[in-house]
């Protein structure tokens, strides 16, 4: 049996009375890349936010790297440190320079010496090609640069899994490519990735599996090639016909 790094079993979640996730089952093996797509409000963001417990699920089990997430999980911070997350709105810390944004968590969470943390930060900034902006503040960078900085910040914690929550949706069309390039590069490096996105070109290039969600349910889960060439459900066909 292949080991799973993320396992969701029968996950249900409600916002008050509204059910956002319905019986979600999902397994992710190490180094797998999964792209989740679907119409807005289908619960795809909520799903990946449950994986690092930014949202709490009410029913079912979520197991990340061998630890089950639940109310009593004491070491939720340890799991979060292993799961990097990139947000739609970047969420860089505006009061810190780009370098400090990246070095902060390694220093305070991983307790690395400042010098070593800054070295890691610079390496990751080099990886996303904004090491020349290291001493600037987030407000002085373009959207694409900010998102790349946010990816570098997540990478500095050397996570086992990266979650991307619509990383290019808040960007100008011109800047989408530079962010996607970084993500493709990351995927080729063997990172386990779950990406919520509408960038189907990116999905075709890197995804092992595609997941289509609608109304809180996983409607279709298929190998990428099969998903685009031969979708099974009518709902998926309709969605793909509109988006491609």
């Amino acid at each position, binding site marked *: 049996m292949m080991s799973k790094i993320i396992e969701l079993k029968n996950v249900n979640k409600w916002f008050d009375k509204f059910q956002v996730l319905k019986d979600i089952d999902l397994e992710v093996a190490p180094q797998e890349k999964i792209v989740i797509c679907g119409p807005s409000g289908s619960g795809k963001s909520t799903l990946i936010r449950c994986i*690092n417990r930014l949202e709490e699920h009410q029913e079912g089990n979520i197991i990340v790297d061998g630890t089950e997430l639940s109310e009593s999980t004491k070491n939720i*911070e340890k799991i979060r440190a292993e*799961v990097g997350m990139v947000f739609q709105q970047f969420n860089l810390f505006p009061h810190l320079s780009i370098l400090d944004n990246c070095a902060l968590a390694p220093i305070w969470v991983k307790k690395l010496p400042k010098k070593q943390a800054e070295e890691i930060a610079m390496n990751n900034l080099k990886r996303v090609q904004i090491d020349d902006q290291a001493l600037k503040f987030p407000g002085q960078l373009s959207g694409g640069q900010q998102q790349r900085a946010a990816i570098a910040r997540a990478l500095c914690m050397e996570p086992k899994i990266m979650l991307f929550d619509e990383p290019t949706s808040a960007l100008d069309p011109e800047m989408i490519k530079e962010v996607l390039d970084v993500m493709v590069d990351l995927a080729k490096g063997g990172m386990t990735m779950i990406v919520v996105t509408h960038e189907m070109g990116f999905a075709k290039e890197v995804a092992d599996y595609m997941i289509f969600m609608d109304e809180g349910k996983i409607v279709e889960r298929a190998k990428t090639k099969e998903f685009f060439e031969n979708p099974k459900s009518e709902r998926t066909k309709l969605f793909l016909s509109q988006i491609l």
Partner: protein
Amino acid sequence: MNLIAKPSKENIRTYVPIGLSLVSLSILDVFANAFFNLNLMAFFPSQLNYFLPLILGFIGFYLIRIEFSGVRSLDILNKNINSNNFNALLTLFTIFIIIKSIPPMLDWFILEANFVGNSKDDCTGDGACWVFIKVWFNRFMYGLYPDAEQWRINTAFLILFVVVGVSFFVTEKLKKYFIFFLVFVFPFLGIKLISGGSFGLEYVESAAWGGLSLTFIISAFAILFCFPIGVILALGRRSSLPAIKYISIGFIELWRGVPLITVLFMSAVMFPMFLPDGTFIDKLIRVLIAITLFEAAYMAEVVRGGLQALPKGQYEAAKSLGMGYWRMNALIILPQALKLVIPGIANTLLALVKDTPLIFVVGLMELAGMIGLAKTNPKWLGMAMEGYVFAGLVFWVICYAMSRYSQNLEKKLSTER
């Protein structure tokens, strides 16, 4: 015919000189009247001549009100103080009131005031009797603190000023130690120096403290303690743990709902009754605790405003990096939230400084309290005006300095483009 035409660019050459001279004439008339008691237009009938400056100025302003005249200074003038008839009238009134009020103020403050002497009888002029301030100055600064021991207060404040002054010029690394000294060491060292009782220093009970030095002592301690307590309360009010949340809400609403004067009175008069026999807490300390907790409740609400202004994404980003509650707040949330509410914090701290005179209800006399005491001295009756003007001036200087400092801080911490 030409003269009643609407002012415009064509007749700018005739209208502007006439208009400007009319305005100048009206201001000159008021000026001469106020400063030299001359009535330049006495030859007009009395009813008319009273309103004449206003009428002349009004006509003058009308004549120079030319849109897009092409003369830059004239355009700026018209746009700012002469955009229509009503604004022209307001402008004239403002100018007249300022001119009219300068001579009496000048007279009272300086020209007719008395500076020399050492008793009330030396004040022969019609203006202020600054002799009062001069004679009582020592009391206004030190209260009833014994004269021979005042060097201790001076030394304490001298150390403070030197340390603060030097800390502006040292490197970032050393600055940490300076701040540590100022926050955790100096307050207690200073208090020990002033209260005495050990190291061969004579004990001076807190009832004898007073004047401006007491204003400073109370303000400094209250600011020092109310700030962290306020931050904790603000965080507590937003806590997800119901017990902490409701205790914080209860505390804040209780202290915000009670007038400070009541709190002070309770702390000094009622509180000792609840203490077990034989225990004694100094009155000054009780008052200090009361003011601190009172202002902390206000501080908490100011800080909470900043916490609420931060986007949710900042919390989520911090959490997603594995930060726990305290690290998230200390490293990400509070630095941003506090920066946002610097104006509100400054507001609260200014109010705190200006609330200190209220401690008179428990018999402690800081600057305003000492002045209140001095003005009831039989030898110095009728000096309330001088005293309170002086107090107002001193408080204004303190508060303005604080306000400027907060503005500088805001500028320094701004990382937006």
